[in-house]
Structures are given as structure tokens and as C-alpha cells.
């Protein structure tokens, strides 16, 4: 699904963040990009989202080079990116509203997309937001805001779901319940999931495969397989503890 080939990327100042970097993601996998601040994990996510572009090499999604945000990719950013002037419903409907605005031109919206707003209602109900659908983001809890952002992204029927430190500002119980929710949705909707995090525990919970990034320049993809994350109550198993320990040691090197 995702094919990063010979990627070189640097910001105007300083060293390249990625140099001749290659990475492959299969459809339906759940990946976590893990690493310390400044390692380039968010940069990689933005490259996948079509909001940044390689200096050299290319990012292919389903075989197509990414030149602009792809209408089938859903992105959730760190502080959710909700519009303070719009209600929960309007925020959740934004993707569809924008598609409506342009029409299905293949550029801003998938060709032949027939989206109707009942999708928004469906996701608001599924995520427990119907009661607050006329409220504004300033009236919501952090968890509700995050769920609104998820509803907005799922309403556009993405096949690729990107999240940048989605749960870092939430309290622990909310974070854990939302992690479970995302995993549920991942399995149910057959999504390809890429989550950026600096939290080892989160990486172990969400990442079927974990891409560990280091201080730049990143030249080689270091991948940790975590296939056991699919078992029920994984958080309480010894395997979970082992993965966390393994990641902790690798991050120290």
C-alpha cells in the first residue's frame, strides 16, 4: 500500500531527516512510528499525507506518487485540528462538505464519490457523540474532541488512517479506551493504520509493526514485529511487557 523509495528529506536548515530511506507497508497493517522528539516521525507522516514532499526519492501509495493530499487518506493531528467556530456535527461533516464543495473531481474528492451526511450521523452515534453534536469544541472534554476528529476522518471512508501523537494530551483511562476504540475500528473497517507516538506503551499496544526512528539522518528502517498485539487483553500479558522492555532497550542504543 505504502512504498517509500530512496526518500531524502531535509528542512531548509540542517541535516537531512531521511537519507536514501526505504520502507514498505502492506494493506491492512497497523504501524507505529516510534522515536524521540526530532527523529522525523511526524515528518514521515506528513510526507505520507501529502503535506510535505521529498527532496529526492518518492512516496507511493497504491502505486501513485503523492503530489497532494489524497482524498482517501485520513489524518488526525496532535491537537485534533477541530474548527472552534463549528459544532461537533459540522466538524465531523467537514470532509464531506469539502467534497461537496468541489464535487467528485478525483483531486479533492474520489471520483464517483457519493457521500451523504447520514455517514456523519452514523459515526457520531458509533463514537457516542450524538448528545453533543450541537456543541462547540470549547465545550467538550479532550476525549470527546479526539472522538470528533476520528468521526470526521472515518466519515470520508479512508483506506489509510494517519495519526500524529493522537492521545498524548489525554488522561490514562481515556487514552486506553480510545486506543481500544482505534484498534476495534482498524479491524472492523479494514484500515491501514499509521500512528506516530513517543510512548513505548502506546507503540506496543497499537503497533503490529513498529518502525523505530533515531536521531537524523535516518537511513535504514529498523522494524520490530509485534504480531502478538492481536490477542485479547494484550496489555495484561507478559508478551506486552517484553515488547515494551525490548523497545526501551532499543531506544537507548
Amino acid at each position, binding site marked *: 500500500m505504502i512504498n517509500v523509495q530512496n526518500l531524502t528529506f531535509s528542512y531548509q536548515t540542517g541535516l537531512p531527516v531521511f537519507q536514501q530511506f526505504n520502507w514498505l507497508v502492506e494493506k491492512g497493517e497497523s504501524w507505529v512510528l516510534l522515536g524521540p522528539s526530532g527523529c522525523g516521525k511526524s515528518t514521515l507522516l506528513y510526507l505520507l*499525507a501529502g503535506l510535505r514532499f521529498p527532496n529526492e526519492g518518492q512516496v507511493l501509495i497504491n502505486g501513485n506518487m503523492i503530489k497532494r*493530499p489524497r482524498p482517501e487518506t*485520513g489524518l488526525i*493531528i496532535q491537537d485534533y*485540528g477541530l474548527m472552534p467556530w463549528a459544532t461537533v456535527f459540522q466538524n465531523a461533516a467537514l470532509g464531506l462538505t469539502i467534497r461537496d464543495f468541489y464535487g467528485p473531481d478525483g483531486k479533492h474528492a474520489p471520483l464517483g464519490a457519493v457521500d451523504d451526511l447520514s455517514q456523519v450521523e452514523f459515526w457520531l452515534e458509533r463514537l457516542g457523540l450524538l448528545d453533543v453534536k450541537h456543541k*462547540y469544541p470549547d465545550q467538550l472534554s479532550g476525549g470527546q474532541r479526539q472522538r470528533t476528529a476520528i468521526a470526521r476522518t472515518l466519515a470520508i471512508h479512508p483506506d489509510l488512517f494517519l495519526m500524529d501523537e493522537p492521545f498524548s494530551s489525554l488522561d490514562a483511562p481515556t487514552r486506553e479506551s480510545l486506543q481500544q476504540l482505534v484498534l476495534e475500528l482498524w479491524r472492523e473497517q479494514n484500515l491501514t493504520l499509521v500512528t506516530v507516538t513517543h510512548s513505548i506503551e502506546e507503540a506496543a499496544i497499537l503497533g503490529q509493526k513498529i518502525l523505530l526512528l533515531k536521531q537524523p539522518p535516518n537511513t535504514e528502517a529498523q522494524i520490530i514485529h509485534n504480531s502478538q498485539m492481536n490477542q485479547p487483553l494484550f496489555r495484561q500479558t507478559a508478551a506486552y511487557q517484553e515488547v515494551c522492555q525490548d523497545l526501551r532497550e532499543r531506544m537507548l542504543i
Partner: protein
Amino acid sequence: MIRGKQIVLALLILLVLWQILAMLVQMPILPSPYLVLTVLVKEVFQGKLAGHFLASFWRVFASTFLAILFASPAGLILGQSKKIGKMAAPFIYLLYPIPKVVLLPVILLFLGIGDLSKIFIIFVILFFQILVLVRDQAATIRPELIQSVRSLGAGRRALFRYVYLPASIPGILTALRQSIGTAVAVLYVAELFATQKGLGYYIYLNGSTLFNYPAMYAGVVAMSVLGLGLYFVVDAAERKLCPWLSFK
């Protein structure tokens, strides 16, 4: 939120204070509110006050409309484009504090003595107020928000419609609220020059030429009503257009 009842109560208290002051002073230059209100009603229905009011209203309305039309997009561009904003900043810094009203004689010379010069001077004042406030508001739109809306497929037009436009409305309304007083004051000054229409002319004529003080005060009340009415309009617009602000 101030409630209607409180406003009416404050109005009554002010009228009573006016009445007391008038009774203490006992001079023709400070008639009682009752006298002024009867003259006001008479002047509106039998005299020409309504016509003057409409002339003034039109000038304020036209200049406000034009100022919003030109200043909001300019402010958005300055606030969102760092490069252009930086280039324009020193100019705005120099021009913004100039009391534009002193340019009135020059504007009269260039644009003539008709409505145009009066509309233009108010326009210039409002333009800078709105420009600066919309610019500052546009600069606070976080790039992350823009990025996440772009990731939903929004190009320039959709960003304008769904992000920039709603984000700039509070700035426009704040600018209007702050400058209504100035606009009406400038209107008064502008209407002292070479015109026979408008509340400024009416007040000046009755106060300094005809020495008809109750009529002069009727004009003052009409001008206050004009300012207050615009204030109410801005408040109503804010409640209608920016309901989220009351939850901040």
C-alpha cells in the same frame, strides 16, 4: 451578556440625571429631556430630521460596507502570508496612528464636497481598524489546523470558505464595535463642511446659527441613536454569526 432590562434601567437613570441637571442649571442651553423628546418627535414627523438621519445613516453604512469589503481580504492576506505581512508591517505601523480626520480638508479638495468625500474619510478610518484586527486574528490561525483541513481535500477556495472566512468574522465585528464611536464622531466633523444634509449639519445649524437648543439636542439624540443602533446591529450579528464565542 447585558440584558435588555438592565439597559432600559440605565437609560431611565441617565434621563433622570439629565432632568435633575436641567432643573439645577435652568438655562436655555440645557433643556429638559422631556422638551427635547417632544421636539425630537415633532422634528421627525413634521420637520426634516428624518431626512438628515437617513443622509447620515447612508454615509456610515456605505463606508462601513466598503471598509469590510476591502479591509477583510487584505487583513487575511497580511495575516496568513508571512512575507507580505512583513513587507506591509512598517507601512501600517506608520499609517495606523495618524489621526485620519485631519486629512478631511485634503480629501474635500480631492473628492469634492459631495457624499464621496464623507464616505471616504470614514472608510479610511474603518479600513485601518479592520485591517489590523483581521490581520492579527488571521495570524493566530494555527498552521496545524490549516494542514488538517487541507488533508481533508481542501484547496485554496475551500480553505477560504471553511477556515479563513469564519475565522475572520470575530475580528471584523470587534473592529466595527471599536470603531463605531469614531466613525460617528468623524461623520459629525465631516458633515460640518459644505453640506446641507446630515445630522452633523443639523446639529451645527440649530446650535450655532438658529440657537434652537431643543432642536440641537434632538439632533444629538438622533446621532446617539444612530451610533447605538449600529452597536446593536454588531451585537446581533455576533450572536448570529459567532455563537461559539459565548462558550469561550
